[in-house]
């Protein structure tokens, strides 16, 4: 875990608004970007961003270590899914926000890769892998819904998602070691 973020979160748990503001300045673009990508609505994205950061302030103990950026992305995604579900009937799918310590497995090194390089890495995936991955993450629909919309067998969708994530992981490993 990034020691700087660890210290900031410790101060937030001690109700230090200045530390919270530093975290906001550092991560609000990520939260807002995910919210915009999922809702495609400026007003909704701002509401989500506000909700996420106020949740961080009110219950900072939900973050139990690991990659802070990945954690706050999960929180944002789940909040956005709640909003999308309320707008239209959707199949449930979400990421756990509070994982046990043993499951905090996101590689911290990836947190230091800037968004543009992450997007470039994602763009290296074949469209047949990238599209179900992006649909699954940002649209909040289940793999069954993806299969139904695309007309592709469910097994194929799952295989392509796995293959795409493995390839992306390999690309990210390359970025970290370079």
């Amino acid at each position, binding site marked *: 875990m990034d020691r700087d973020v660890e210290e900031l979160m410790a101060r937030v748990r001690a109700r230090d608004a200045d530390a919270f503001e530093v975290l906001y300045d550092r991560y609000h673009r990520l939260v*807002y970007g995910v919210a915009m990508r999922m809702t495609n609505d400026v007003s909704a994205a701002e509401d989500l961003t506000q909700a996420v950061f106020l949740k961080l302030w009110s219950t900072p103990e939900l973050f139990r270590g690991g990659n802070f950026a990945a954690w706050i992305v999960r929180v944002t995604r789940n909040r956005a899914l709640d909003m999308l579900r309320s707008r239209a009937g959707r199949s449930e799918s979400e990421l756990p926000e509070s994982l046990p310590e043993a499951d905090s497995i996101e590689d911290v090194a990836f947190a230091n890769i800037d968004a543009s390089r992450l997007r470039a890495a994602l763009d290296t995936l074949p469209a047949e892998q990238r599209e179900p991955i992006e649909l699954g993450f940002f649209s909040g629909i289940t793999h069954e819904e993806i299969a139904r919309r695309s007309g592709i067998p469910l097994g194929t969708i*799952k295989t392509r998602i796995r293959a795409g994530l493995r390839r992306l992981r390999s690309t990210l490993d390359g970025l970290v070691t370079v």
Partner: protein
Amino acid sequence: MTAPHESMLDDVAVYALGALPASDARRMQDHIASCESCAAEYRALAPAAAAVGMSAEACPDEERGAVVASPLLKARIMQQVRRDPGNTARNRVSRRGPLVWPPYLVAAACFAIALYSSLMNLSLMQQLKSDQSQLSQTQHRSTALAQNLAAERETIADLTSDQAERFNIAEGQIVRVNHHLYLTLHDLRAPERGKVYQAWTLPKGSKVMEPSLTFVPDAHGAAVIALPQNADQTAAVAVSVEPQGGSKQPTSKPLVVQSLV
């Protein structure tokens, strides 16, 4: 690894992406906790899934079509956070704010202010009384000066009047005018220590001189005395040297004796 388990690993990837239905996701979470190969697959793929989300970070570069949150959003959020009573940063600011005095210092300050105010009030009252007294004295002096001035003007008017009767004597004149009597003397010697000059008047039909004013000449030996007696009722005027304070009867030979009849 069996084919069914290979299919399970595909589900692990979908789970890592967050695209499993909630009920399946809970079962997968339980499975990963007990299956090492699935846990290893999850550990390998979850960072990639997280990177998908992190790739969506809003671009701050306006030239590349920035997607940025309104600055007002931060203001709204920070306003709520800083309003939180538990906010230690807020409390630090508060401690740097207004100075809070302990009660005993407040009481001491109040007492000092009250004491100072009382002393100031007392001093101001005394000053006011003193000023009022000085003002009263000044008014009295002013009244006396005005009366003296009026008397002197009357004296001058009488002494210069064409209707005045003037009785020449060796030391000056006795002037009678408008029922008034005046002694205008000059070249008088200063009386001895403890002595003054005293005027005497003889009422008409009387044989006894009555005491009138006492006086001393100025440095030049001059004196102008307005006698209080009615000139029309006075038959004669005399002047003698008498002890300080005057006498009821002349005790020395008069240096002036002048009949007005």
